[in-house]
């Protein structure tokens, strides 16, 4: 324990004593004050340089995304005469709204430091469940409500397993993804059940004026998400939880409850998406969720939310959803293979993650 004799420790510089604690330093290693000051000067220079770089990269990330949107939009406009028509754009908006609804909530989940990849399977299971209830004579609205409750319940299961049993949410939701997709296919015997029901079809294929109803759902969910994220305490707590969980908890944030809440909201949004697609198709089918495994997460990451939590904006997600919407629509118009669409999505996802990486690196 006697690391240094009393004679050697008489140093007036506080930092020098700091050296002692690093373990067994000899007198020769004790730094002079002048040296420390130079180091400090260099350190603050470095801080300033880093701060500049961070701001630059952040700008690139924000404005770069808009730029990508414009490029994709113009490309499609040039490539297809049908692209820039009112009808087509409204159709594209309607189609992408389903993705958008889930992306908004997924953004919050990711900002909170988690991820939910079970969304497509929850959609499918909700749809099949509603189909089963309707074929056995239930009122379609009642079936819808039960379906939504079921979806929220799956979210709660995801949340509780992740939060209270401390399982990585990627693993938890991969598990529930598989479980409910399997159930959806098994219970439906992979067949499609048609769902009529007066009024039910409005949810997916109705329109107000000429604007499709799903777009209103998306706008509504987006506004709620954006206001929540920016203007409420709960929103700030989500950011804090994902950014620095310990700091959030020490500050009195109910971080665990909040994370469960995020998963429940995610389940509910997936259920809503399932309801809308079911209504649009006029039938319940287990394969409706398939396109959303990849696209929801891609939209969120492309929008600038960080998989490490604490960072992300609703505006970013909105632009990313718009980009994916244009791509999706363009691929259909140009009659490209839908498989190729997956390839593009995957590429975008990787690029988005690399950008995030770049931003993070600029911070060190």
């Amino acid at each position, binding site marked *: 324990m006697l690391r240094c004799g009393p004679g050697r420790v008489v140093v007036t510089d*506080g930092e020098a004593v700091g050296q002692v604690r690093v373990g067994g330093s000899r007198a020769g290693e004790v730094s002079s004050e002048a040296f420390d000051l130079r180091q400090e000067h260099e350190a603050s220079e470095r801080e300033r340089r880093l701060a500049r770089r961070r701001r630059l990269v952040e700008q690139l990330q924000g404005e770069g995304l808009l730029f990508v949107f414009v490029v994709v939009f113009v490309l499609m406009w040039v490539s297809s005469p049908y692209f820039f028509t009112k009808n087509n754009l409204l159709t594209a908006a309607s189609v992408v709204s389903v993705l958008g609804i889930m992306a908004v909530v997924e953004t919050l989940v990711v900002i909170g430091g988690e991820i939910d990849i079970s969304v497509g399977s929850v959609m499918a299971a909700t749809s099949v469940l509603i189909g089963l209830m309707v074929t056995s004579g239930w009122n379609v609205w009642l079936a819808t409500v039960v379906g939504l409750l079921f979806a929220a319940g799956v979210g709660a299961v995801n949340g509780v397993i992740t939060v209270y049993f401390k399982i990585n949410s990627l693993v938890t939701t991969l598990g529930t993804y598989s479980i409910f997709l399997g159930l959806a296919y098994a219970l439906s015997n992979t067949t499609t059940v048609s769902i009529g029901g007066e009024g039910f079809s409005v949810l997916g294929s109705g329109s107000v004026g000429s604007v499709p109803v799903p777009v209103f759902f998306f706008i509504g969910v987006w506004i709620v998400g954006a206001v929540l994220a920016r203007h409420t305490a709960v929103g700030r707590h989500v950011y804090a939880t994902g950014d620095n969980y310990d700091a959030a908890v020490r*500050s009195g944030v109910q971080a665990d409850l909040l994370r469960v809440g995020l998963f429940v909201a995610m389940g509910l949004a997936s259920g809503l998406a399932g309801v809308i697609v079911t209504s649009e198709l006029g039938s319940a089918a287990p394969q409706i969720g398939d396109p959303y495994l990849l696209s929801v997460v891609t939209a969120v990451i492309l929008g600038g939310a960080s998989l490490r939590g604490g960072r992300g904006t609703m505006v970013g997600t909105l632009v990313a959803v718009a980009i994916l919407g244009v791509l999706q629509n363009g691929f259909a118009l140009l009659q490209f293979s839908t498989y190729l669409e997956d390839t593009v999505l995957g590429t975008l996802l990787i690029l988005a993650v690399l950008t995030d990486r770049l931003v993070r690196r600029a911070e060190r």
Partner: protein
Amino acid sequence: MSGDTASAGPVLEARNVSRTFGSVIALSDVNLEVRPGEVVGLVGDNGAGKSTLLKILCGALQPSSGQLLVRGEPVTFHSPKDSRGRGIEVVYQDLALATELSIVENIFLGRERRRAGILGRAGFLDRAAMARDAKESLDSLAIEISDVEARCGLLSGGQRQAVAVARAVRWGSRVLLLDEPTAALAVMEADKIGGLVNEVASQGVGVVLVSHNMPQVHQLCHRILVLLRGRIVADLRRDEIKVEDIVMWITGAALASR
């Protein structure tokens, strides 16, 4: 100052506090008292148990045995929330700021101010009021940060430290617990934090200061407790010792020479 503070009862007290982590005895039978306006230094080698003791004092950890008292009243802290309710604030060694949030948001994290009326009840924040308040807190401590809306991630180490201290001062009405608040700071900035500690204490707040900066501890603290492998081996009055004496106690040399 220590003259009039001696007459008041302790605002925070730990009695026979022990804490183990598995087979590691981090604290054993520790007693500590802080009076209003008193600055108590807590020093010791790495791993001596200083942070553990501070975490117990604020409820971030629970003691394996022993009792805490606030103004003579026995208390049990299940979490920092409980201690905060009694005016005890802490600055952790690792700061515990959310770097993606702004300075204001960090100062008010978990204690956000809401708007008046219906919007407030719906959870809407009163950003303007919080910004004003945060600016005032920083100003009153002469902390120079021009933009309280700046993200904490953009601040220098010293500025972050200052924000963490300002937050604690803003809310800590009775006791301030500081775990190495100047460890990462330049000499000037460390002196500034020292000035803050004096200022806070003169307002009647009790302060427990953990630091490896012996000259600063000697300068700021009225009393200095020395932890050695989880035990308090010395309770030194500042007036009666020199800086070198503290170091001897920390290393155990003072014990060995007896």
